[in-house]
């Protein structure tokens, strides 16, 4: 069974002449432990596809299944529960909660996933240590560099051991060195823990490391390349 199965997904924003057809019958299967990039020009539908796969939105037509579960029929709270338990997110702007420390930012993800309080902080500390931030647990985001913040975001996404991590342009706001380091980290996590990563990016460095590159153009998949 595929981890993600999108079949003939359609998404349209607006109506009439103002309608924007973001996705026009997209179908894609993503297997566990993939390290996949979705690329394409702006407006090609990358973000819309990620939103559907991340259960942040539902398609107007077609189906999206996560671990075999059709998300179309789920209500808001069921989608929230699915996201909390099975999907991690990494954003271009890191999007850490500024008033929480690195440790608390990671712990929040675990708490929202319903993890019991016992051992939660220890688990978060271990994850932060694994991403190289063991000495910065009590730092707030404004006391961390961009690369460090993105590492916290990676730890936040990974701590609940999700089936899938969706990363939206994760290196776009980082300098070259930090971007490479964060990318190496995610690649290592993919290799070591078998976590499935799904990126949207324009960054050639990310595409170079991907094992699969899916290209979207005008809301349709125009290329799907597997690399060895």
């Amino acid at each position, binding site marked *: 069974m595929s981890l993600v199965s999108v079949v003939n997904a359609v998404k349209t924003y607006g109506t009439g002449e103002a309608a924007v057809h973001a996705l026009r019958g997209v179908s894609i299967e993503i297997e566990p432990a993939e390290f996949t990039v979705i690329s394409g020009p702006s407006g090609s539908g990358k*973000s819309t596809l*990620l*939103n559907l796969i*991340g259960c*942040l*939105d539902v398609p107007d037509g077609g189906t999206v299944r996560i671990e075999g579960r059709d998300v179309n029929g789920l209500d*808001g*709270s069921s*989608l*929230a*529960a699915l*996201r*909390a*338990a099975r999907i991690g*997110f990494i*954003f*271009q*702007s890191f*999007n850490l*909660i*500024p*008033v*929480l420390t690195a440790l*608390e930012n990671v*712990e*929040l*993800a675990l*708490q*929202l*996933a319903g993890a019991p*309080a016992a051992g939660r902080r220890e688990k978060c500390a271990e994850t932060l240590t694994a991403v190289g931030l063991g000495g910065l647990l009590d730092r707030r985001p404004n006391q961390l560099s961009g690369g460090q913040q993105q590492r916290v975001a990676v730890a*936040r996404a990974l701590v609940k051991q999700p089936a899938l991590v969706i990363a*939206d*342009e994760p290196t*776009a706001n980082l300098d070259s060195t930090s971007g490479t380091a964060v990318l190496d980290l995610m690649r290592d996590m993919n290799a070591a823990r078998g976590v499935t990563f799904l990126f949207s990016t324009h960054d050639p460095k990310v595409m170079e490391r991907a094992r699969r590159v899916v290209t979207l153009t005008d809301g349709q998949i125009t290329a799907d390349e597997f690399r060895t």
Partner: protein
Amino acid sequence: MMLLLRLAVRNARRNTVRTLLTALTVTFGTAVLTVAMAWITGVFGDVLGTAADAAGHVRVVDPDFASREQMNPLYEHVTGVAARAEAIAAMPGVSDVAPRIMTGVSVSVGDEIGEVFALAMGAPKAYYERRMRFDEHLVEGSIFPGQSPKEIVLGATVAKRAGVKIGDDIVLFGQTQDGSMSPLRGPLVGIVHTGTAAIDQGAFVLLERMMYMADIDDAATEILVFGEDRDDAPALAATVSAAPELNGLTVQAWTHREPWSGMLAIADVVRGILVAIVVFITALGVWNTMMMSVMERTSEIGVMRSMGLSRMGAVFLFVSEAGGIAVLGGLLGVAIGGAAARYLEVVGVTLGEATTAQFPSDIPMKATLYADMRPDIAMTAFLLALLMAAIGSALPSLRAASIAPVEAMRTGRR
């Protein structure tokens, strides 16, 4: 839950100045409510308490007297008051019974009809002592010492206007039940000053003397009945009205008599309007702050929603933040308002007898008005502070809850 609470607290500290201003808004609102409620309770409670004590928790009258009370028809009296009073006194919950007659008189020294007018009252001595508390307000002489059944006590205002002193032979010119002139002569034995215009403008004699002046035997226009607590008057009225000795008579709790029932309603309306206005204005302040917080944190809420924060969780986050501000502001407001109310409770505000004399004679308004600061007022004001926060944060919280998780993706690219 604890982490979300911690987040709410830290969010409140993000913009300290704004949070403090909001807390001060709640403080101001709560303090105003505390003082106002203590003031309303004090002033209305004092007036109504004095009125209920003077007019009886429950009153038994002839139905025709009740319907034409403004005319004070002495001929519409209750007969056989001694026996009826004895029967009422034996009823459960009754602690005091006092037949009473009131009528207008002129006050003079000697045989001339005086130009000083007073409301004369005839009642048992025990009524003057226990209900009117004349011994607490005596400024000169004594209260019906019993050397003569004709003794007269005057209110300070009347005594001053009439230019009389203790020991003077006073004449009260009133009328009988059929309207004939009827003088009542007796020695002035005491002068009382209660600070209540309606009482200080009165002349007081024992019941038997007033029966004599009104030319009614073993009768009174009213039988006043007292229980332990004036708030229990309706229940006491129900008990008393069931007595067979009172068949055909009207039994009224003071809370159902004008002007007291109207005043009770006015007190409730004034209190309600005041609370509504203050809560609304303060809630606007809270609303403004919380709405700005929601707008500033759209991205964060979106991220948390994408991580699995439920709509209720988003509501909880903002209601907790507003609740924290309200607890802080409310406690401070109760403390400040409570101190101010306590000051008004001890020192009061003096209107002056000239001002209170303008009030209708049946409203016993005192020259100095006091607040009544009670623990339940502090508790109510604090709960209202929480209500302000709940109202003020309701819409912003719902707005936060309506932020779609997809906002995380949208704002995550900025």
